[in-house]
């Protein structure tokens, strides 16, 4: 669904994303983790072709409309400029499908609203909702786009615990249904529990790529995140808890 080969993005002379090669297949929910400034956002924007880059991304090669049908993008900044109703806002996700105001478009919008538990919000004005509710509305917009791949930049930042878990479950269901999700996040615990795979970025490089249990090793946590953590596979799933910081 996405192939990256030696993807590099420069800011001035400095590579913010440095020769990253990786791929995403159907059924995967990939957690993109790494400290602040590691290049997570830039990697996703370069992969989408939204910024200048070197190397190759299978998405960036598509023409903009085809790319929009292949991948939905949830930027970190949750911008809603006008007092659109929730239903109108979610319907914006249908734009890449041209003029389908018919049954299929309405169905996709209704399904996305239902998936995010927003059926009763249809007529509400999006700008008057709380930050967490707005975040859910914007995720519903991405779902309504019905693209196989979703790239999301810190979609759960600022959500309450229940909404964080629900969002991860929505993404997991999208992956289980044959789609795929690449989502950056800082909560390693949620990444460990919900993601099928994690990508770890550090200073522009992709330093680890694999299942959470193998990637989140003591050495990597110390090297990349400068923390010590408890990680255990329990009967109730993976439990990860950061414990203390280490000397840099």
């Amino acid at each position: 669904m996405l192939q990256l080969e030696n993807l590099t993005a420069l800011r001035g002379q400095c590579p913010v994303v440095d020769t990253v090669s990786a791929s995403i297949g159907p059924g995967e929910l990939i957690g993109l983790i790494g400290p602040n400034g590691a290049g997570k956002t830039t990697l996703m924007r370069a992969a989408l072709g939204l910024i200048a880059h070197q190397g190759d991304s299978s998405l960036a090669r598509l023409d903009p409309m085809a790319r929009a049908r292949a991948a939905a993008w949830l930027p970190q900044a949750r911008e809603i400029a006008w007092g659109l109703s929730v239903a109108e806002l979610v319907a914006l996700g249908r734009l890449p499908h041209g003029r389908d105001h018919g049954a299929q478009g309405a169905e996709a919008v209704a399904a996305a609203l239902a998936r995010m538990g927003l059926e009763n919000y249809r007529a509400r004005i999006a700008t008057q909702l709380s930050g967490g509710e707005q975040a859910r509305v914007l995720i519903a917009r991405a779902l309504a786009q019905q693209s196989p791949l979703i790239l999301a930049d810190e979609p759960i930042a600022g959500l309450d615990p229940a909404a964080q878990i629900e969002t991860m479950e929505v993404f997991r269901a999208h992956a289980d249904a044959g789609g795929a999700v690449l989502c950056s996040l800082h909560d390693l615990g949620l990444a460990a529990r919900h993601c099928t795979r994690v990508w770890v970025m550090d200073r522009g490089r992709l330093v680890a790529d694999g299942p959470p249990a193998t990637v989140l090793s003591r050495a990597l946590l110390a090297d990349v995140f400068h923390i010590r953590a408890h990680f255990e596979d329990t009967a109730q799933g993976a439990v990860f808890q950061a414990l203390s910081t280490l000397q840099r």
Partner: protein
Amino acid sequence: MSYRAILIWLSLAVAGLFLASLLIGPSGIGPMEGLRALFTGEGAPGLVMRELRLPRALLGVGVGAALGLSGAAMQGFLRNPLAEPGLIGTSAGAALGAVIAIQTGLYAAFALALPFAALAGAGVAVALILALAGREGRALVLILAGIAVSALAGAATALVLNLAPSPYAAAEIVFWLMGSLADRSMTHVVLATPFLILGAVILLATGPGLDALSLGEDAAASMGVSLKRLRLQIVFGSALMVGAATAVAGAVGFVGLVVPHLLRHSLGARPSRLLPASALGGAAMLLAADIATRVIAPERDLKLGVLTAIVGAPFFLAMIRKMGRET
């Protein structure tokens, strides 16, 4: 009210005001007599109807639609309800062109020199904007470039006034700058129409892109909207419309600012829906204002731009006050 119902009501309002604009004037022609004269073209009433009132009413529709539509497009593009069509410097550029035509006496020699010079001024302003803001620049750069070009054109206009050869020339320039639809001919209509239509076609096509832009530039780009193309459409479309409107009517403020904002409450906030509605709303408002100039002070030649500013500015203040309370 549904979207369609609002469009129908607005169309009816434009049609009604167009008729009223044809029938109201200082020459004391009765309504039935006027309509008959319009169709037959006979005698003095025929001349008044066909040569004075018809072009005036047609320009009212065209100029109003231009200001409303480009105002709605500019607000949608900049995601700011305080944006107005002249923001990117086209109206200031057009005004400068017109003022130069008056100053040099060109327009006395050749009647269409003034609108042509105004269009040229708008064109130069657009070229400057694009050169300043670059091809890739974001909305903010466009606004700043627009402010710079407007300031430059404004200063040049002031310089021309400063150096005016006689008080008469200065007065003429000042009156022209106030904006009016009085004493325009069918030639003005013919000159402006192609620009207005081309600009309207370009701007009306920006609807889906403006809708997507509600979610921010990055999200819009990811949904297949070419920001570069959208920007050129907005700049050229509004320059064509505002340039042509300013060329034939002078500087008429506040219509492009106020109309989209008025309609946003009843229509919902979707920028694409606001485009056609604001075109109709702008036409209705300009026709009404132009009729008002004739009714309020028939003997004094009240200028259209003065009236729209006198009504528009307090409205603008009320709007700002309301926004201050909401946040």
